[in-house]
């Protein structure tokens, strides 16, 4: 085990002076991030394609980097276990994906409602019958309104950066809600890329439970009543008002996270050639496919810009509205059937007939960049 020193400032971990490049998988990038995150507990449950990441986190436990790690009995149980640990005042991590995400689903809005700064990686996969273990981002559509912050990694580098930085965003006193770091299963988890990582001998400052807006359940203060009388099954105005104001508070906490997403992720989105007539707006590995398509389009004289959406909750509404103002067409390629990202974008841009919710692939298929190119070519007449 490498002796780790606690960083005095988070920038020492996020923007280190010493860096090294590794040719690693997405799952290994998670391990690298967790090694530097100074977590107290990690709890695991197997689900493809997530399992390898939590195997590697288990190795960190065996090596002495994490004080406690165990395998729970189901995803619903694990999400309860990490909730209990977070309520006890420690920094905690888990990962899941696909059917596991849905089995655990009831806990995600509860995490948000309990104001727990849990960081969870979601490695997306198909969830419908017949059984599939293949990549698909449909589960993200279900999670959009659970109240958790949602970051979407394009590749292993993002996965390393977002996972590590998610702790800083989640733990801000004025935010203090869970962060889900999403990456497309297999495409990111099981493939290698060069990833720049910080020195392994420096870790984040420890979580301070006293910064929580909801006191830790550690019996070090006066009794904390998570629910009070009006919250409980009463049909009266006070009960409705208590529920409603709390839900508003969660939404407000998500909104307050914007400034920290800017601080730690450099913004909710990134752009290239944003003045172009045609913009591709994408998230996850669809961004990588779009980069390839843009190269092909440029060779044919088509001018296309790219908007990489990194943060889906809070949604970059104003940024997208601004970028869409002069675009003639917006192409949204997605790795799912329902086109949830196109739906989100259509809901915020004026004249949303300009938004092309295509191409979409699902069932585990890859997205040839030619498919995106075909959509761009179809948009060319609209730009004339």
């Amino acid at each position, binding site marked *: 085990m490498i002796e780790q020193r606690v960083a005095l400032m988070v920038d020492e971990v996020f923007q280190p002076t010493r860096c090294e490049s590794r040719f690693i998988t997405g799952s290994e990038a998670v391990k690298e991030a967790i090694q530097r995150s100074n977590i107290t507990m990690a709890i695991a449950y197997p689900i493809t394609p997530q399992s390898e990441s939590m195997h590697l986190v288990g190795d960190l436990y065996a090596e002495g980097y994490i004080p406690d790690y165990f395998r729970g009995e189901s995803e619903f*149980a694990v999400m*309860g*276990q990490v909730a*209990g640990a977070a309520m006890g005042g420690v920094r*905690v991590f888990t990962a899941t994906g696909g059917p596991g995400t849905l089995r655990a689903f009831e806990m995600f809005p509860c995490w948000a409602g309990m104001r727990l700064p849990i960081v969870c990686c979601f490695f997306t996969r198909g969830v419908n019958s017949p059984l599939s273990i293949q990549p698909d981002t449909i589960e993200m559509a279900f999670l959009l309104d659970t109240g958790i912050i949602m970051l979407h990694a394009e590749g292993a580098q993002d996965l390393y950066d977002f996972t590590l930085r998610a702790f800083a965003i989640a733990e801000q006193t004025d935010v203090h809600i869970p962060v889900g770091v999403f990456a497309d299963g297999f495409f990111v988890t099981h493939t290698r890329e060069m990833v720049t990582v910080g020195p392994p001998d420096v870790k984040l400052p420890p979580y301070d439970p006293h910064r929580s807006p909801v006191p830790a359940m*550690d*019996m070090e203060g006066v*009794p*904390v009543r998570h*629910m009070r009388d009006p919250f409980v099954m009463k049909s009266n105005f006070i009960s409705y008002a208590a529920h409603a104001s709390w839900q508003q508070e969660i939404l407000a906490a998500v909104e307050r996270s914007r400034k920290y997403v800017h601080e730690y992720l450099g913004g909710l989105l990134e752009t290239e050639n944003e003045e172009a007539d045609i913009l591709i707006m994408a998230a996850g590995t669809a961004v990588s496919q779009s980069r390839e398509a843009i190269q092909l389009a440029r060779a044919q004289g088509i001018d296309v810009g790219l908007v990489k959406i990194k943060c889906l909750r809070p949604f970059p509404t104003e940024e997208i509205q601004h970028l869409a103002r002069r675009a003639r067409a917006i192409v949204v390629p997605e790795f799912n059937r329902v086109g949830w990202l196109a739906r989100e974008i259509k809901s915020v841009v004026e004249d949303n007939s300009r938004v092309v919710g295509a191409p979409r692939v699902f069932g585990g298929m890859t997205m040839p960049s030619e498919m995106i190119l075909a959509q761009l070519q179809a948009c060319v007449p609209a730009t004339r």
Partner: protein
Amino acid sequence: MTKQIFRIAPGFEEIMPEEYRELVTDGPYDRSVGVADLGTFKELLEEHPLCAGCGLALSLRLFLASLPAPADTVVVGSTGCSAIAFPQVGLHNIHGLFGNQNAIASGLKRALKLRFPDRPKDVVVVAGDGATADIGLEMVMHSWFRAENIATVMLDNEAYANTGGQESGMSPRGAVLNMAPTGKKFEKVAMPEIARESGCAYVAVTSPANARRFEKAIRRAILVARDVGPTYVQVFCPCPTNFKFRPDETLGVIRKREKEGVFQYREYITPEAQQYLAASEGEKR
């Protein structure tokens, strides 16, 4: 660090309900009380939302008076009748979701052990029979398999009472209940035996009909869980509303079942827990 209970903000004392003021000034928090002291302090607001004659409410009162260290105890509850009573107490409590109480308690207990390795922090699960023997059975049993240091108390009112009297795994065979319109088809789930075989160091079946035995079981369960291993207490606390007997007949129903041999007070203690209890109870004397 403070062990004081919530204080009412100055100027608001007069407008707070009297029983709330009593909970703040006369609660059992950070005091050493027992069931014999019930009536001399406020452990549960009278205006709790449980039904008249509720065996579970009576059990909760006894439970609150039996805690060895209330100021260092958190109760993890689950959806059900008990969940609607817990906001009426002056005690740390968590409502998880339906059935995941032992999962939440596992994570919490481990976190507290890491943060306070030298100070006992009791994590006690209190949940109904639906949460413990049905929807949450997987998580209850696995907390026992993992030997988590938590005490699990099942308030067995033999039905899903809060949702209107549906059959639960703990309902008696033959009981006609909602969702068992022709009578329940199988016996009560053998939870004490499951607990014993799953690794609990202390198992007791008790009821509020005998307050002393109840108190002893709860205290033993919490103390053994603190230092030896997981524990389980099953509290028979019948539901007058859904089993349709008069509210003043609750204790009579328990005694009748005991006489018939259907409900039996019993304890199972592992040799290790026995040794521990002998030492700690001997010390107390």
